[in-house]
């Protein structure tokens, strides 16, 4: 059981100017499942590897349970890691793979046997203990990699995209297994993924990163409802939020003839700090309605309709200030428009997000 604290942790790869991880401040509570998410190259894996001790920390420090581990080798940190391609020892059986770390710590034979059997039971691997990794399926290998981490009974679990090598169906299954396993064991877990659905479904809290900088840390719910800047707003949610920068009037943001209302304070904040008379407005595809031609909606020409079974995504474009902009709307299946139709889109009141046009910060 442990907490993890990054304090101004920075990693600059030799020969590069820009830090891969830039002054990261992050606190992870005891028993928490924290997901690091972001597009590739955002520094999420590097942050994890810094915690594992596989990557140097150039500035700042990292503490596990108030113990400074910044410059300790991996083996002194009491952590266990699950790698993207599992990194199982190909010449050892499943049993030996799981027992390897324990053997290195001179754990007694009986204790090793007990722990390996227990982990194997937890992961339904009992039948495969005598097999080599190459005789296992992808899902089984993934479970062995988990087992190898579990038998250690470490202070912190680190997982680096452990599901990305599985097929889509197995990924969904394993996702829930990992989450429930973590809940059962109660071990602090840091989980890296580029997949925002994994992040939203598994994490107690989610940390979104971009270009080495932490953008926002919050619960999945809060991240979705109150993204702190344009990047987070666009990254979380699928299909992505409609985010457009439009002219600002005293009453709100102007989409051709449609006005998205903003309060007086919001308008003032948008004008401050070089915002000019522009504002960035975002609304989620599911937070708008298709209305009649006379009800003041934004006219959008439909390009594509994706029927998802439960509902449908309507993709289309509208000309804003002479520039053609794309929009996505989620709609009821019963009211699916056809390609080429013009629909009128109206964001629901109080469900839109306003951001400063210049800084991208939430207003």
């Amino acid at each position, binding site marked *: 059981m442990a907490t993890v604290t990054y304090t101004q942790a920075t990693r600059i790869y030799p020969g590069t100017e820009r830090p891969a991880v830039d002054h990261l401040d992050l606190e992870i509570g005891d028993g928490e499942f924290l997901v690091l998410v972001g597009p590739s190259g955002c520094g999420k894996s590097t942050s994890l590897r810094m915690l594992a001790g596989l990557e140097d920390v150039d500035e700042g420090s990292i503490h596990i349970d108030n113990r400074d581990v910044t410059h300790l080798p*991996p083996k002194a940190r009491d952590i266990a890691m699950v790698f993207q391609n599992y990194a199982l020892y190909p010449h050892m059986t499943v049993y030996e793979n799981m027992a390897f770390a324990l053997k290195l710590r001179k754990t007694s034979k009986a204790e090793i046997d007990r722990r390996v059997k227990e982990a194997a039971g937890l992961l339904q691997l009992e039948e495969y203990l005598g097999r080599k990794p190459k005789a296992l399926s992808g899902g089984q290998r993934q479970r062995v990699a988990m087992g190898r981490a579990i038998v250690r009974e470490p202070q912190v679990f680190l997982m680096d995209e452990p599901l990305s090598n599985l097929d889509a169906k197995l990924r969904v299954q394993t996702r829930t297994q990992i989450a429930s396993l973590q809940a059962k064991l109660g071990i602090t877990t840091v989980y890296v993924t580029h997949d925002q659905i994994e992040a939203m479904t598994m994490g107690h809290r989610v940390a979104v990163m971009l270009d080495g900088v932490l953008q926002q840390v919050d619960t999945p719910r809060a991240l979705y409802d109150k993204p702190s800047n344009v990047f987070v707003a666009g990254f979380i949610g699928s299909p992505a939020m409609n985010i457009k920068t439009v002219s600002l009037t005293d009453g709100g943001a102007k989409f051709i003839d449609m006005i998205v209302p903003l309060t007086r304070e919001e308008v003032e904040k948008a004008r401050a700090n070089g915002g000019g008379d522009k504002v960035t407005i975002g609304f989620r595809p599911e937070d708008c309605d298709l209305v009649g031609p006379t009800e003041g909606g934004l006219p959008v020409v439909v390009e594509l309709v994706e029927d998802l079974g439960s509902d449908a995504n309507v993709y289309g474009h509208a000309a804003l200030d002479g520039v053609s902009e794309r929009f996505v709307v989620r709609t009821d299946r019963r009211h699916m428009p056809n390609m080429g139709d013009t629909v009128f889109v109206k964001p629901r009141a109080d469900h839109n997000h306003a951001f400063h046009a210049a800084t991208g910060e939430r207003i």
Partner: protein
Amino acid sequence: MTTTTPVLAGQATAEQPPRTMAGRVRKRLNSRTATAVSIIIALIWTVPTFGLFLSSFRPEDDIKQTGWWTFFTNPQLTLDNYNQVLFGRSSSSGQLANFFVNSIVITIPSVLFPIAFAALAAYALSWINFRGRDWLYIGVFALQIVPLQMALVPLLSFFSRGVSLGGITLLPAWDLDNEGKFVQVWFAHTCFALPFAVFLLHNFISQLPGELMEAARVDGAGHSKIFRSVVLPLITPALASLAIFQFLWVWNDLLVALIFAGGGREVAPLTVRLAELAGTRGGEWQRLTAGAFVSIVVPMIVFLSLQRYFVRGLLTGSVKG
């Protein structure tokens, strides 16, 4: 987005002509004519060896008067040649048994030492970060271009005079006699083998997945443990193929052994004796044929027993898993 469409692969490969150049070549090499041609070439290649083999069993007079192919019209076999070569008491006969042992004494350490050192060096050059690592590797790699013959005299003087710089002796002369000369041969063979061995093993070890090393480090292993428990078991095919190369080279070597061990009965290997048989007893070449086969036996055994690894070793770099 998590949903990915499964890619349908491997459906349209069977009947269409291969598209790439390599594919076409591979296909042609798999045809029946190609197989037949390669069998014929293999047979032609084997004929001289077969002739030598047959000759080694023919009586002295037959060998000297007729070719081995006359055996089929006049089949006469004898083990006299082998008997003379291996156990003959007169100084003119082979007495190969003794030299055979010398060859083994020379070969085994000369194979094991360079492989052990090269594996350690290759691991360090691949997975331990230290300053100047790449330059060191390039240096070792470049040493392969030094011809062995160029190093003979300096190495010999190193053994007999030691190393001195400006009158100060840094290393004394080795002063080795008789059986001690084996040490010189081992040393020389190890030196000459190392650059290539390091190069070959470095290629293998540096291609092991880095995450494996990281997993081992997180599991609590240090470098020596990683080397023993993770790296060594995974590079056995490479070690075996290197061992075969080095074994064949040392076993067949005449030059290094003759120079560093000399032609003395206590230390000279088989090859030295075989050369003497040919040189001083040119007339009696019935012994040569038998002698040659005695010296072939061991490499054959080594090759056949390690062949499995040899083929795999050559492929390991290219085929994943």
